[in-house]
């Protein structure tokens, strides 16, 4: 009994790590959908670029700063990755999405698909093989609990958490709290919420819509880049295809939480992380995708606009 509880507790820790990464990516989808009602299909590939940017930056920065404590190097690289990916996201919006704002919505979605494909295939040209990220921090494993195997024969079961897991969860939570503050308490955040509430009236109130949208892409892509870096540290072998694999999952998380809702994205991310980890606990690991996508369909049947989303008001 205790054995099973311990196992479940271990999986909960893993789910928290997975969920916080999903939540960070899902935020980017949700923020963009909130202001533009557009699905930014290139976001998953920006997440993937975050991991590659971390690899490249770590190769340059770490040898230069040997005297600096590793945690500061980590924070420096994290900020640089967020800045690079953030500006890239804003740049894509500027050149590819903004000219299409008056065009049919589908054109923008297709362009986003094209941008994602372009990023992925360009990365594939530069890095045809999987790359590995050097560890930025010495990873330590903390043993929280140890229980002898009841049968007496096997090795004792331990409940462990690594320093990296703590760091990932902590960074994710700090970023989410900062975002929540930005959206609820600052003028930018107020403008962002206003645009998603009524995009047609807001420009009449003197709010620079273009600048706010650029900001949204900057922040959303920056968070995606940070998620990519955390993911790369947790699973150090990275490949261009992970943009699609993980990115689409995070998109599901955003939809489950209610796309357009910031807190919904976080909730959806953690739910998806938990479902994926639990699916592997109870079924074979090959069923993971089947279960998480079926969950999405079931939730959409009962809550068509996600858990925390609200139905758009239909104007005729």
């Amino acid at each position, binding site marked *: 009994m205790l054995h099973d509880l311990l196992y479940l507790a271990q999986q909960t820790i893993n789910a928290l790590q997975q969920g916080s990464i999903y939540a960070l990516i899902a935020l980017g989808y949700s923020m963009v959908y909130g202001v533009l009602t557009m699905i930014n299909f290139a976001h998953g590939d920006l997440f993937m670029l975050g991991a590659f940017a971390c690899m490249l930056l770590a190769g340059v920065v770490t040898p230069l700063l040997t005297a600096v404590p590793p945690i500061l190097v980590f924070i420096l690289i994290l900020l640089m990755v967020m800045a690079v990916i953030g500006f890239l996201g804003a740049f894509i919006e500027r050149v590819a999405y903004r000219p299409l704002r008056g065009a049919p919505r589908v054109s923008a979605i297709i362009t986003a698909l094209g941008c994602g494909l372009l990023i992925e295939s360009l990365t*594939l040209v530069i890095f045809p093989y999987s790359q590995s990220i050097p560890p930025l921090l010495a990873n330590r494993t903390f043993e929280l609990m140890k229980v002898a195997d009841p049968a007496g024969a096997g090795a004792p079961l331990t409940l462990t958490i690594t320093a990296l897991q703590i760091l990932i969860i902590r960074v994710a939570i700090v970023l989410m709290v900062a975002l929540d503050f930005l959206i609820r308490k600052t003028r930018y955040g107020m403008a962002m919420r206003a645009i998603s509430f009524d995009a047609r009236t807001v420009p009449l109130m003197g709010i620079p819509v273009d600048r706010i949208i650029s900001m949204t892409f900057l922040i959303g892509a920056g968070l995606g880049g940070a998620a990519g870096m955390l993911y790369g540290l947790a699973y150090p072998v990275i490949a261009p295809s992970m943009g699609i694999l993980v990115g689409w999952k995070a998109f599901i998380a955003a939809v489950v939480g209610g796309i357009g809702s910031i807190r919904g994205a976080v909730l959806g991310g953690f739910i998806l992380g938990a479902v994926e980890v639990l699916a592997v606990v109870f079924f074979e690991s090959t069923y993971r*995708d089947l279960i998480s996508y079926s969950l999405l369909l079931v939730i*959409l049947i009962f809550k068509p606009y996600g858990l925390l989303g609200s139905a758009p008001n239909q104007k005729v």
Partner: protein
Amino acid sequence: MKAFLASAARARWPLPALIALGFAIAILSQYQPIFSGYAQIVLITIGINIILCASLNLVNGYMGEFSVGHAGFMSLGAYTSAVFTTKWLPDLPALFPVAVVFGGAIAALIGFLLALLSFKTRGDYLAIITLAFLMIVKSTWENIPYVGGPAGLLGVDKMTTLPWTLFWVVITILVIRNLIYSKFGRAIIAIREDEIAANAMGVRVREAKILAFVVSSFFGGVAGALYAHLNFINPKYFDIVKSTEILVMVYLGGISSLGGSILGAIIFTFLLNALEPLGYWRMVILSALLIALMLFRPRGIMGLRELPWFLPRRELFAKGVVPLAPKKT
């Protein structure tokens, strides 16, 4: 010469003549080495892509929805027809058309269920539902050992020939063209323009949507069945990248245009094969092309315009392509 071409574009006879010529060449090529093996495969692939493209155009172009799950229907058709010809009734080449129809029917059945589900939500959420559908189908095949699991289904006979492909291309274009210029087709276009207004005018929105979805998924399944009997199939082939390819073809050729779908499928398949030596650069070029196309010509090459050959006679009069006969007074 120019005058001849101009009159041929308006006339009714060239299309049946072209189809007859196509069939003659296709059937002859089975007995005489007209095309090399590679050329045959490229031509069949173009045919399969035309079917995929025209059928997706019905939902994404004419109805204005955004489905990303077409590769899922293709996969359903491919697997069910391949199971039919390899496991249930093997070694009966005469039953190949039945297998293709069976694959299409299963895809249509699932398409019907998906259409019902899609009424729960609106707009962009169809993209999400079809995405989930695509992933579920792929994951299901991977977990069924009966169809080979992740390794794919082996030992499928190469029964897809040029005449069969041409036959199905003609059927697809004919059915979709007749559907579009029927009462239901008008309803589908009305839904694209304004669903609420269409509903208020008495268009049966649900019926029209379900019909469009079922027809589209049927032909998606047919294309998959043809593909399964030409190539080796495994679950990974029918993923989001395949769906994106079909979307690229549709939007390249032009939405709401069967002529555009044919053109898009031909150009895209040709480029894909011509750029083969470039390796990974191929996808870079194709995706850059897609972005440029959307920025400078968002409706595609033939967007919202139709080849005069596909228009019914009354449409030709309405558009002034053919002058009405002067009334005798």
